[in-house]
């Protein structure tokens, strides 16, 4: 098996039962595993709710470390749509030419520096740096802010010592409070100022609501983007033929990006709280318990994807759910896709071979299932083209 391969631990259960089970801090989760069922449950936000107690739809649950509601993530319709309207335009800015140009400058500079080094630890020296710098564009704040964000390490909520580190969460929350106060004192063109000026149903957002939006923006795109970047580097290291092909046929890049995102599925699953007694694949589900929509499993469903466990770099029809599905689909997807596009283009332009030295895999424990989501660390050498 290749070092960059990511296997699917859910296959057997997906085929045999359609669901899996895991415990999480005494609040068990029934994981929905098939593509169609995942879409069906994601669509049914009334029965499978996001607007539950803050932190409960996240797995592992954050109810013990967070009472701020993430917005619009933990709000269901109709309010979800009201929040979403004021955010959509801002989160489409990555499509603007000036944004893409800045992103390209950032990524090219990072790749240039990395190629000079004998060895690069991709998670901390490359992906975290790239993600943090790119986030300054999404927030429209000075580049230098990325230094603070890089210093927080790879997880905003989680650290190496414990799965849920409330100390780290507080570092983030205090930081956000300070930034909001700063933008109140001196409004500008940054994300906080935009949120402070925004109105929902004729009312200004409260500081708590703004904080909820900002926490989501930090947390949702942190380890997901870092894993997507790192897994891409590992993939291209072992598949120089794919780099060659994209170099010859750059029109395939858009397909390659979606395929890599499907294959990696950087977010394994997301929870929902069940509002009424129901059943999934014949398994009874009680009200006020949790299910999860397992995007990673759905994305390997062989009834939808031919050669589901392989990266088919030019896969043309690719109805993956790596960015979720339906009402709550990922707000940061445009930013993430632009990062992937510019990264792939930069690798094609500048990088020749990539050698993998040593690595440690990052394995998620999900009850009986163990899933590789990426790496804890991976050392590589980037060679110039």
């Amino acid at each position: 098996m290749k070092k960059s391969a990511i296997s699917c631990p859910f296959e057997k259960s997906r085929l045999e039962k359609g669901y899996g089970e895991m415990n999480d801090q005494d609040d068990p989760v029934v994981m929905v595993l098939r593509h169609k069922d995942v879409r069906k449950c994601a669509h049914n936000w009334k029965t499978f709710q996001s607007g539950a107690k803050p932190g409960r739809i996240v797995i592992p649950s954050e109810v013990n470390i967070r009472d701020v509601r993430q917005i619009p993530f933990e709000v269901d319709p109709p309010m979800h749509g009201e929040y979403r309207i004021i955010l959509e335009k801002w989160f489409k800015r990555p499509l603007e030419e000036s944004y893409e140009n800045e992103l390209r400058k950032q990524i090219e500079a990072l790749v240039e520096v990395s190629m000079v080094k004998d060895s690069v630890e991709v998670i901390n020296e490359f992906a975290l740096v790239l993600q943090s710098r790119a986030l300054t564009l999404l927030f429209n704040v000075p580049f230098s802010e990325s230094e603070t964000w890089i210093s927080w390490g790879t997880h905003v909520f989680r650290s190496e010592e414990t799965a849920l580190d409330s100390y780290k969460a507080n570092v983030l929350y205090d930081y956000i409070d300070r930034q909001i106060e700063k933008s109140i004192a001196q409004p500008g063109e940054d994300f906080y100022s935009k949120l402070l000026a925004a109105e929902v149903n004729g009312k200004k957002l409260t500081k708590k609501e703004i904080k909820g939006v900002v926490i989501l923006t930090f947390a949702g795109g942190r380890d997901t983007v870092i894993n997507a970047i790192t897994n891409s580097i590992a993939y291209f290291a072992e598949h120089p033929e794919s780099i060659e092909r994209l170099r010859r046929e750059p029109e395939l890049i858009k397909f390659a990006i979606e395929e890599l995102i499907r294959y990696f599925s950087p977010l394994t699953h997301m929870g929902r709280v069940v509002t009424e007694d129901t059943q999934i694949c014949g398994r009874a589900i009680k009200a006020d318990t949790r299910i999860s929509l397992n995007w990673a499993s759905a994305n390997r469903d062989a009834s939808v994807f031919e050669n589901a466990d392989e990266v088919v770099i030019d896969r043309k029809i690719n109805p993956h759910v790596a960015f979720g599905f339906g009402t709550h689909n990922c707000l940061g997807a445009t930013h993430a896709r632009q990062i992937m596009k510019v990264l792939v283009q930069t690798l094609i332009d500048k990088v020749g071979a990539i050698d993998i030295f040593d690595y440690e895999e990052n394995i998620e424990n999900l009850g009986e299932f163990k899933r590789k989501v990426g790496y804890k660390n991976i050392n590589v050498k980037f060679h110039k083209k």
Partner: protein
Amino acid sequence: MAKITFITSDEQSITVEGNSGNVMELAVKNKIKGIDGNCGGVCSCATCHVHVLPEYWDKIGAPSELENDMLEFDENISDHSRLSCQIQVTDAIDGVVLKVAK
């Protein structure tokens, strides 16, 4: 050359021309409001959903099984829903009118 008319959610009617690629790409190129094509046309994001005006349904044709599956749980599906990234721009669809889904 195929002429394609889009009716946006604010009832504006815009006619554009094309001879290659898919309808989503044509719409994005012409900045048709409400067609985003986030996934680049791989049938994943459903942000290029259109309702074909019934009189043109035969010209456009029904969706494939996979496309139909993706539409199945869309909020605003109709009997004439299509994902425009899965419709090729050819002379065969000249003159069709598509209503951009909300």
